[in-house]
């Protein structure tokens, strides 16, 4: 997780949602877009590495419940048999919300620490994805998203007044 934090060093604080990333179920980065200045620019390769690392962390976190049950059962306050893995990562300068759908797709939203209702934001992004990406008959599932309609509606939702 150190890597994620280092990669997302903030250069300044102003507005709410910094970036949205979408990972397919294999951990590949299929969408990445910055909305507000605040995140350091990364090379596309770094983004891919970040996505892969994050995917690994989430998978580990959920797999650990089953495999290293002895350890995690001491850490975890509940006895649930399944865990969705890492969901929120907070630091002084940003908060990251991860939402994993039941199909395995992951939505990552980076935002200002005080941004409220991130889970609502991330669910809305999922709905836009279901509409403008999945319902486009020419979109190939699991492949990178290049959809003008999705871009437009996502921007309209996240930055309505700009």
């Amino acid at each position: 997780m150190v890597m994620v934090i280092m990669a997302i060093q903030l250069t300044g604080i102003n507005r709410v949602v910094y970036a949205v990333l979408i990972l397919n179920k294999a951990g590949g980065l299929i969408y990445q877009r910055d909305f507000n200045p605040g995140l350091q620019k990364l090379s596309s390769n770094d983004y891919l590495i970040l996505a892969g690392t994050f995917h690994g962390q989430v998978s580990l976190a959920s797999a650990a419940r089953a495999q290293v049950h002895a350890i995690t059962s001491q850490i975890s306050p509940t006895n649930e048999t399944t865990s969705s893995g890492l969901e929120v990562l907070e630091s002084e300068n940003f908060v990251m919300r991860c939402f994993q759908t039941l199909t395995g797709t992951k939505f990552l939203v980076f935002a200002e620490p005080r941004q409220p209702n991130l889970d609502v934001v991330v669910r809305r992004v999922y709905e836009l994805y279901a509409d403008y990406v999945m319902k486009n008959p020419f979109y190939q599932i699991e492949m990178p998203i290049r959809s003008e309609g999705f871009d437009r509606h996502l921007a309209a939702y996240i930055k309505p007044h700009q």
Partner: protein
Amino acid sequence: MSSASRARLGEEVWKTRTDKINAELVTLTYGSVVAQLCKDLDGDYAEVNKQLDKMGYNIGLRLIEDFLAKSNMQQKCANFRDTADVISKVGFKMFLNITPTIANWNSDGKQFSLLFDENPLADFVELPDDGKAQAELWYSNMLCGVIRGALEMVQMQVDAHFVSDLLRGHDTTEMKITLVRYIDDELPQDDE
């Protein structure tokens, strides 16, 4: 989530979050797809069934995301009985405004039937009288593919097929769904 609250959820999604279109448009669009397939494949109804299933499969792979996003389901079903309940009360309800009856569970809980009292796809339909269609064509076979594709995306491999159809003169329209296995790995699926 109890069975009753699923019924409420399905009702609510259908009423408040589903865009509606004219039913005839759906019926006629689906009808022309099936009729064109029958024509193109020269009355090879086994192949028509297969193609319909394949189309449905590709729909299911995509539709599942809409289903999850709109229904706001975040919890996996605890068992296959729950899955059946969700398919009927939430899935069919929000997309077709019907709630097929769940019946005929087998003893190990891995197979059930959906009984369709009404089927919007089959309104106005009479199968051709060529001596074959009545015995070979499963008119609504796309639905089987949709279920197969959608469940595959949530880590369930199933087999779905019709065993009877009002259009063929049977007493019921019945689809049998069998759980083959739960898929463990998180590998990408191939688009057909």
